[in-house]
């Protein structure tokens, strides 16, 4: 049993932290408030060049081959400074990993290096639809075989990075007669494909620099080689890969929670009321103690899930537990941090307000807390029946 990071993992953590402090932190508030994504995209490019887009991807495809634990600690460090950058990293890594897991050799060679190198600013994961959120198997986007390819029609919703993604992993129904979840296939659709339309950008509560758009398919024609994995086997791929993404989002939540509590704790040691530092009041000490305890528990859950995945062991339940707990703990940490700052915490002059908005989506995307509980309960009950 060794709970210490390896020297390599520590160095990756240090590099992520150094980069985040020097490059992300100074522009995070400005990106939150403004419309100009230029510094955001420039930093994504730099992060790609440093190898952060394919942490758990093989070297031969341009990845860093650093493993899942390194991915988790890097996500946390990036998220401490900029959650929008972190979520883009998480999705990019997930896209690379799904192609690596189920793509053909040609697909791997064609696309993974372009995301890892930053040639593509991002990759997108197009699963959710307006009527298929927590229940993606209810999707209606269709792909119909036509000559030497497929024609896609339908609409996807809440697609991260859509306006600047170079590649979309798209799920569509290919067999309408098959039982639910059995007739779905997965396609790799390049940006600029005819009939692929980037729709309206959502106006979100937080994570503003990261674009979230509607994606429309209007007789979008893709070649037969766009099919990834076997026909009608796509849903299994989605379910499998989402578990890895949950480690990413849990780690992201942890980063936001830590940023909020570190800011608020420093504030509490400087702010005086009633003639003493407010950190001297036991009521606030308990808030600090509880929050950091929860964040530490979240970290250990994440490390455990990442370790299991890295070892090639089943990790679905652990990833769900970590995602559930870390993202809920992050929201509680932001709530506590706001409370510690009092009225200042509610203003935009202090970053805790941004952390609070950025954290909120974490219990929703990549599977809501309720879906995580469903998965965890199912896994537990399985062993009792």
């Amino acid at each position, binding site marked *: 049993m060794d709970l210490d990071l390896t020297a390599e993992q520590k160095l990756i953590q240090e590099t992520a932290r150094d980069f985040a402090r020097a490059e992300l932190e100074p522009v995070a508030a400005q990106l939150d408030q403004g419309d100009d994504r230029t510094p955001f995209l420039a930093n994504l490019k730099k992060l790609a060049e440093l190898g952060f887009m394919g942490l758990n991807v093989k070297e031969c495809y341009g990845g860093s081959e650093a493993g899942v634990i390194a991915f988790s600690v890097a996500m946390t460090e990036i998220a401490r400074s900029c959650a929008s950058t972190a979520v883009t990293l998480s999705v990019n890594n997930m896209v690379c990993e799904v192609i690596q897991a189920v793509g053909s050799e040609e697909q791997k060679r064609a696309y993974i290096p372009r995301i890892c190198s930053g040639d593509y600013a991002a990759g997108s994961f197009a699963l959710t639809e307006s009527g298929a959120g927590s229940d993606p198997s209810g999707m209606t986007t269709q792909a119909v075989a036509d000559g030497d390819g497929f024609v896609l029609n339908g609409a996807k919703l809440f697609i991260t990075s859509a306006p600047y993604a170079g590649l979309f992993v798209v799920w569509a129904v290919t067999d309408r007669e098959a039982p639910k979840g059995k007739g779905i296939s997965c396609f790799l659709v390049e940006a600029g494909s005819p009939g692929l339309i980037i729709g309206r950008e959502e106006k979100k509560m937080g994570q503003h620099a990261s674009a979230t758009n509607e994606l429309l398919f209007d007789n979008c024609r893709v070649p037969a080689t766009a099919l990834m994995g076997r026909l009608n086997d796509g849903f299994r791929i989605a379910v499998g890969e989402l578990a890895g993404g949950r480690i990413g989002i849990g780690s992201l939540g942890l980063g936001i929670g830590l940023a909020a509590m570190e800011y608020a704790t*420093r504030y509490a040691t400087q702010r005086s009321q009633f003639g003493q530092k407010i950190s001297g009041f036991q009521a606030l000490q308990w808030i600090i103690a509880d929050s950091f305890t929860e964040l530490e528990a979240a970290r250990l859950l994440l490390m455990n899930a990442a370790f299991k995945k890295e070892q090639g062991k089943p990790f679905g339940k652990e990833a769900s537990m970590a995602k559930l707990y870390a993202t809920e703990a992050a929201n509680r940490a932001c709530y506590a941090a706001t409370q510690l700052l009092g009225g200042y915490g509610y203003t935009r002059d202090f970053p805790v307000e941004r952390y609070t908005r950025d954290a909120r989506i974490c219990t929703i995307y990549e599977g809501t807390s309720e879906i995580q509980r469903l998965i965890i309960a199912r896994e537990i009950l399985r062993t009792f029946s």
Partner: protein
Amino acid sequence: MKALLVGEYREGNLLDTTYELFGFADQLGAETALLLVGSDSRLPAWVGTLYLADAAQYGEYNPELHTQLVLEAVARESADCVVFLHSSYGWDLAPRVAAGLKAAQVSEIIGIREEGFEVGCCNGKMRRTVKPATPSCVLTIQAGAFPQLQPGGSPTIIRMETAGSSSLEFMGYEPAEAKELNLTRAEVIVTAGRGIGKKENVPLIAALAKALGGELGASRPVVDAGWVPHGHQVGTTGQSVSPKLYVACGVSGAIQHLAGMKKSEFILAINKDKEAPIGEVADLLVVADLLQFVPALTARLAK
């Protein structure tokens, strides 16, 4: 105790900081002799033995030959210690002399204690007291830590020569980048430190400088990051200043910075960290988020 002081010439001029060596020796209670690689035309006002080597022959920077000159003077004087300023000249030369004497060196002394010499460490956050354990020792003193002492009079000159070649050739000086301003004459300086967080916050600091009728200064990290041009840099590698009011915004207070501003008449420091070393020299430390406090102060001054 006998101390051999090693002064400095730059571009033909005796540097004023040389007089700080006398201030140190005075506090140490040591008899002094002085070594200079310089010229007759600019001699220190002081009575004592001056070992003088000609800079025209040995250069203002030629550490190999200067080391030989120092070692020879030490031998002639039977000096117990050799004292340099902790400057680009001193810290370069001192260890060579220490190696030659097989003597301990204590670097960047800021004070004299009964048990030994006080030096800063951990970026100015802590202090060490160091005691040399060799019969003779080499000391460098922090710029500005000891008062300049100008005893007056004229020295007795002993000409120094040394033979030998050098593996190192001094090619000349490069002037500092054009200074837009002379901070040394400013009555008020408002300095931006690393704590301002980003380049975009420089105008906040500049606005306060304007409201106070002063100039904008900058610490080294801010200049290195390209947020403010070098001409604004305060510290040992920038300008040494002593305005009536010095306002340090988000300056942690590295030793090199403190050395360049601690003689200011009144120092106001604004910092989030109450423990930051700038607090040691500040007459007034405001513990606050400078992004909140500075605009508020500027607005109040504008009224």
